[in-house]
C-alpha cells in the first residue's frame, strides 16, 4: 500500500512538490552533508529546474534549504532576504547536464571553516529527492533512510571497521554502497541505516584510522520543521 501520508502530504510551502518542496530538501541535504555552516554557494540548475524554476520558487527553496529551512517553513518565501541578513552569498546559473533527471541541481558549497562540497541531486516527485553525485563520485541515495556519508582513504579494512562499529552499536544497515574515484584515492561509503545514529557514535566513526570525514543525515530531522 502507498503510504497514506504520502497521499495526504507532504505538508509544504507551495506551489510544487517537485520544484519547491524537493528543492528545499536538496538544499537542506547539501547543508547537512557539508558538515559546516554554509557561507557561499554556486547553484547550477538543469532542465525543468532552469526552465520553470523561478516561477516555482525553486531558487528560493534551494537557498532556504541551504539556510536550514524545511519544506514546510513559511520563511522559504523570504529565503533571499534571510540570506542577505546572515551574509550568505549565492549565485544561480543554468547548466546542461547529460543524462540527468529534468529536475536537477548542482550545488557547490563552501562552509565557514573552509569545508567544500559539490553535490548533484534531483527532485523525483512528491517532494522526494535523490542525490546523484558527491564531489564527482557517483552515488545514489534518497534521504528516506538515516544516511551516513563516510569519506575514507581507499585502503583495505576501512569498510569492515565502520560496519563493525555499527554492529556494536546495534545499528542495522539497510543499504550500503562503496564508491571511489580511482584505486588508492579517496573513497566514499554511503550507508543507510534503520536506526538513527547518535552524535557520540559519529565521533567514534570519525576517529577510526583511514576515515577522513563523517557526515550524517537523520531522516526524522530532515522531514519537517520543529516549529513555525
Amino acid at each position, binding site marked *: *500500500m*502507498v*503510504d*497514506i*501520508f*504520502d*497521499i*495526504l*502530504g*507532504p*505538508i*509544504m*510551502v*507551495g*506551489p*510544487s*512538490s517537485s520544484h*519547491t*518542496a524537493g528543492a528545499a530538501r536538496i538544499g537542506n541535504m547539501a547543508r547537512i552533508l557539508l558538515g559546516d555552516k554554509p557561507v557561499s554557494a554556486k547553484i547550477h540548475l538543469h532542465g*525543468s529546474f532552469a*526552465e*520553470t524554476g*523561478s*516561477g*516555482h*520558487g525553486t531558487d*528560493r527553496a534551494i537557498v532556504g534549504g541551504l539556510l536550514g529551512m524545511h519544506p*514546510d517553513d*513559511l520563511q*522559504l*518565501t523570504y529565503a533571499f532576504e534571510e540570506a542577505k541578513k546572515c551574509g550568505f552569498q549565492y549565485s544561480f546559473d543554468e547548466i546542461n547536464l547529460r543524462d540527468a533527471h529534468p529536475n536537477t541541481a548542482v550545488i557547490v558549497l563552501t562552509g565557514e571553516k573552509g569545508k567544500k562540497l559539490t553535490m548533484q541531486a534531483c527532485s523525483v*516527485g*512528491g*517532494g522526494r529527492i535523490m542525490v546523484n553525485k558527491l564531489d564527482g563520485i557517483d552515488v545514489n541515495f534518497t534521504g528516506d533512510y538515516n544516511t551516513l556519508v563516510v569519506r575514507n582513504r581507499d585502503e583495505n579494512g576501512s569498510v569492515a571497521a565502520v560496519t563493525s562499529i555499527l554492529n556494536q552499536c546495534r545499528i542495522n544497515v539497510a543499504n550500503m554502497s562503496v564508491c571511489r574515484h580511482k584505486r588508492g584515492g579517496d573513497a566514499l561509503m554511503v550507508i543507510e541505516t534503520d536506526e538513527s545514529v547518535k552524535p557520540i557514535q559519529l565521533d567514534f566513526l570519525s576517529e577510526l584510522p583511514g576515515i577522513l570525514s563523517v557526515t550524517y543525515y537523520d531522516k526524522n530531522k530532515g522531514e519537517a520543521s520543529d516549529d513555525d
Partner: protein
Amino acid sequence: MTIDSMQDIFNLMAARKKPFWEVILEADMEERQVTREESMAKMLVVWQAMKDASDTYTGTRHRVSGLVGGDGMKMRQYAKRGHAMSGGYVSDVIAEALSMAESNACMRRIVAAPTAGACGVLPAVLLPLSKYAEYEELNQHQILEALYVASGIGSVIAYKAGIAGASGGCQAEIGTASAMAAGALVALRGGSGKQIGDAVAMALKNLMGLICDPVAGLVEVPCVKRNVIGAVNAVSAADMALAGIKSRIPVDEVIDAMGEVGRRLPVEFRETAWGGLAVSPTGLKIKENLHSKKKQA
C-alpha cells in the same frame, strides 16, 4: 493483507466487520509500525495544516506572474452575499477550493492531497462542514475518519493508476483528488463501502481524459480553477452515490481505465506545457513576458 484495490478494502471491511476508515487506519498502523494514537495524531496534524491554511488566507498575496491572487477572497465575499447560483454549501466549497489552490501558487503552506497542484479539492469539501454548523454538526473524529477514507482511496489510485500530472495528466491529479473527496463525503454521511466505491467511480469517470497543460509550466493557470471543478464534481458524485445511484462500471475498472488513458495521453498534455492552454496565443504571450522579466532580474 495488502491493499491494492478498492475490492481489497471492501473484503477487509467484510472480514473484520469494520468501517472503511478503520481498515485504512489499521493498514497504516501495520505499514508504519505505529500505534492507533500515533497514526491519528499524525492525521490530526494534516487536518490542522489544512485548517490553518484556510483560516489565514487573506487573498492579499499575489504571484510574480500576476496570474494568481485574490480570487478566493472574491468568491468568499460573493458567497457571503447569498445570491450565488450554486448557493449555500456549494458556493462555500468553490471559495475554499480557490483559496487553497491560490495559497499553494502563492507559496503559502498547504497539504499536498494527493499533489500540491490539487491541494484545494479535499479540504474544500470538508472545511465548510467543519466551519459552519448550519451544514452539518461534525466533531473532529468524524473529520479524521473522512481523511482516512480519502487517503485510502488515494493510495489505491496511486498504486493502480498513478497520481502525477507528468505521467497521467490532470485527470490523475484533480481526478484523484476529486475521487478522494467524493468518498470522504459519502463516508461522512454514513454511506456504505459500496456507496463510497460508486462515488469514487463517478468522480473519476466525469474527469477522465482531463489534460495537464499549465501556462508557462506554472501551477497557476488553469490549475487553481481546476481545483473548483474537482471539488464540485466530488459533491455531485457523493450526492448521486448517497441517492443510491450506482456506477455501471465497477470502481476498480474505472481506476484502471483512468490509468490507461493517462499512459496513452500524448506527452504534450502531461505537464510539459507543450499543448492545450499552454500554447494558446495568450498562454504563449504570458510565458514570453515571464521570461523577459526573469532576464531583467
